[in-house]
């Protein structure tokens, strides 16, 4: 009788151990799987205030400010004429140099006519032109007319980065194994990155003009492929808190999402205070954003930013 009971007890203990073993094994396997899945996201963060004051003196910061000059490459088409006009009236005034590259010339607005219908070929031509006419500019920002960009915040992001290093920044997306920067939220290239890109353009095997695969890759992915050959990788632009600065959606849709996801903290949970781009907004919404960014503010709240950017000449809506 006793041995039966004892063997029963032993059986119970063995059963419990067996079950534990199984469950532990069960939890281990997903962990090993995720390790192989995880990919490295490169991040580029804007320097925080403390970091700026720690690493640079006031005069050095001012020097940097003068050196950070952005050449805006805006790819337009006559069919997006209304957006093209809005960009001219709004944010492009804050670029140090804003060039519009069009697929075909339009009677209404002036632009550099590339006479090219293929998107990827047009982008190549535009970048080549920008590189050749860069002058002293060391940073290039590629945008579409549906993008709205706050150039001052872009300058803040790249302030402490050396343009002789290859930088390829924006909102990074993943397509299979390829990390690329989304087109509609703006692409930032340093001088070095652009130089390498122009060089690899001549290599037909690595970076063909007519696209390589059977299906057509979008231009932003093509760009990433070509840059990858030169050793330049896409990096995600973030603020000091890790929030993404480049947005490929409108501010309204981001707020609508935030209302659903963080109903008690909508604005905090939505978008960065120093966001650089939004995309897909209507021309009217872009005018409102212009007002909201450069003019509307509450009295008595000052940010003693270490840089000063002055309003552009000949403009009144900012």
């Amino acid at each position, binding site marked *: *009788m*006793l*041995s*039966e*009971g*004892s*063997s*029963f*007890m*032993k*059986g*119970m*203990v*063995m*059963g*419990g151990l*067996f*079950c534990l073993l199984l*469950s532990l094994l069960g939890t281990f396997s997903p962990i090993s799987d995720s390790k192989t899945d995880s990919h490295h996201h490169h991040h580029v963060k804007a320097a925080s*205030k403390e970091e700026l004051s720690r690493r640079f003196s006031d005069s050095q910061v001012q020097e940097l*400010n003068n050196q950070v000059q952005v050449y805006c490459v805006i790819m337009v088409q006559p069919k997006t004429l209304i957006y093209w006009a809005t960009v001219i009236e709004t944010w492009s005034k804050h670029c140090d140099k804003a060039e519009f590259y069009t697929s075909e010339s339009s009677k209404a607005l002036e632009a550099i006519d590339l006479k090219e219908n293929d998107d990827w070929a047009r982008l190549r031509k535009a970048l080549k032109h920008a590189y050749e006419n860069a002058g002293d500019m060391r940073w290039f920002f590629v945008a579409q007319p549906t993008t709205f960009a*706050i150039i*001052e*915040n872009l*300058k*803040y992001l790249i302030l402490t980065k050396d343009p002789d290093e290859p930088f390829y920044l924006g909102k990074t997306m993943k397509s299979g194994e390829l990390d690329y920067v989304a087109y509609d939220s703006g692409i930032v290239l340093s001088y070095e990155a652009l130089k390498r890109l122009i060089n690899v353009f001549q290599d037909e095997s690595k970076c063909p003009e007519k696209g390589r695969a059977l299906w057509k890759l979008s231009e932003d992915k093509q760009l990433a492929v070509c840059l990858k050959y030169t050793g330049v990788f896409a990096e995600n632009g973030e603020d000091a808190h890790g929030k993404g600065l480049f947005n490929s959606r409108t*501010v*309204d849709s981001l*707020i609508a999402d*935030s*209302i659903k996801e963080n109903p*008690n903290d*909508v*604005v905090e949970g*939505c*978008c960065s*205070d120093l966001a650089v781009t939004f995309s897909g907004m209507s*021309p009217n*919404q872009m*005018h*409102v954003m212009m*007002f*909201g*960014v*450069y*003019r*509307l*503010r*509450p*009295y*008595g*709240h*000052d*940010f003693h*930013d270490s*840089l*000063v*950017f002055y*309003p552009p000449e000949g403009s*009144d809506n900012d």
Partner: protein
Amino acid sequence: MGEGDPQWQHIKDVVKEQLEKAGLKAEGKIEVKILTRKNVEEDDQWLTEEDTKSFRELLINLLTGGTEEVYKEQKRQQELENNYRFVWGENQEDSQSSSTSDSDDMDFFPFVFTSVTVSFVSGVWLAFTRRRSDAEHRDKPRRRSFVRFQRPRRSSVGADPRRRSSSCPLSVSTCAASADIGFSMKAGSSRFSFYSGFVVGTFALYVFLRQVWFERTAPDTGSFADLGEFQQQLEEEKKIWKKERSALFNLKHPHHIGEDSHLADELYKKVRILCWVMTGPNNLEKKARHVKYTWSRHCNIVIFMSSVDDPDFPTVGLGTKEGRDQLYWKTIRAFHYAYEHHAEEADWFLKADDDTYVIVDNLRWILANYTAQDPIYFGRRFKPYAKQGYMSGGAGYVLSREALRRFVEGFQSKVCTHTTSVEDLAMGQCMEKVGVKAGDSRDSEHRETFHPFVPEQHLTAKFPKSFWYWSYCYYPIGPQCCSDLSVSFHYVDAAGMYLLEYYAYHLRAFGYRHRYQSPTPKGLRLEQSGSRDSEKHHQESAPEEEKRVPADHKEDRPPDAKEAAEGK
């Protein structure tokens, strides 16, 4: 259209698909009849979504004889019941959360019970079978084997052959276990009990582990999350406001990390504003909530005025009905309430709708040039119907304490009465009667600060010349519609509230030096001590002030010129 027509087939397929989607089997024959219109001139009218849906319901009910409805109702009831059970079940678990062991035992109980019975039954059976055989000489060696288990080091000659002779069909572990335990020739019974114990142990531990894990993941599911969120919301609210007598007293002025808001804080203390928001019981969650979580946090005190008392939100019940015709009654009662309960706790009293967005810091900037004793009120000034004009209701307007006192007195002395339900006009007429001046709320560049529409319309819409707006505006509209330091916008929906909050208080251009450098208001100027900004502003504001003076003198026509001079 004939039977063989591909379109015919397509229509049949579509109908089949719709029926299948509704959960019915599309068997049998589907006949499609197409009706055509007699006269061709009539425009085709497509059914709206709702009509399509209800038509479909009707069709399906006809086909299924109404069982679809019953089924739907059943499903709905079931869902409700599940929700209740989930919520109440979770509540019970909540109350017992301190004693988690109890709940474990509760679920453990059936399994423990079954395992105990199984072991008992097996024990009984084994005892019974053992009694059958000549068990005498077995017992002794078994006992010895049992003893041997307890003291494994001591080896006994008698036990060894038994150990070796025991069969080992299974894995090594069980073999070792059985060796330790010391199975006899009649190993079956012990082995059986061992296996049953093994099974019972596995199940028991599995159940136990599942319970533990389930508890850990439970907070993520369904309405329990909502409960938790609600708790969190209450906690948050307690930190922001102090609820007292149906008003929310702002405990802390919202601040940004890394910003220098000492000027705003100064004004917060000097220019105390009580904001009351006109709302109704149906709009609390749709509109008033968003006001509560955005701009009203910047008021010193905020009160939500409704027709019905609600202690949770909280709202004050004004005892009126709802509706456009009640607007002036609600306004009168709301101002009377504010005067009776909070007259000494604020200097200025702002009226806003639940679809008005107000940048309260900018309102303080304007009001800091005046005092609470000035009989004056501000808003978006409209021309018609009143000699000195009146302030647009939707864009919000703000009365000084003196103006409020005169308003209340005016009603007591019957100088002011309920003349019309057009609230803003009636208010303007009353203000004129009791000698309260209609102030100029424009900034130093003569740009309007209170706006009766959303920013998009003011910034981009080209209103036609015949639009009423142009003839209503008291002041000429210059090239720039809106001041940098705008105070209010109207017809702002829920998302628009958060968007304006983002634009005004959050999104900015780093390091941007604004074109418009706002002059320091009079109330602060006297206190500024040696900071760079104040000196610069002092120099800038002197010519700004001069610009202001002629603008004010222009309207100094009403008889209370003395008060106007004092107000300056």
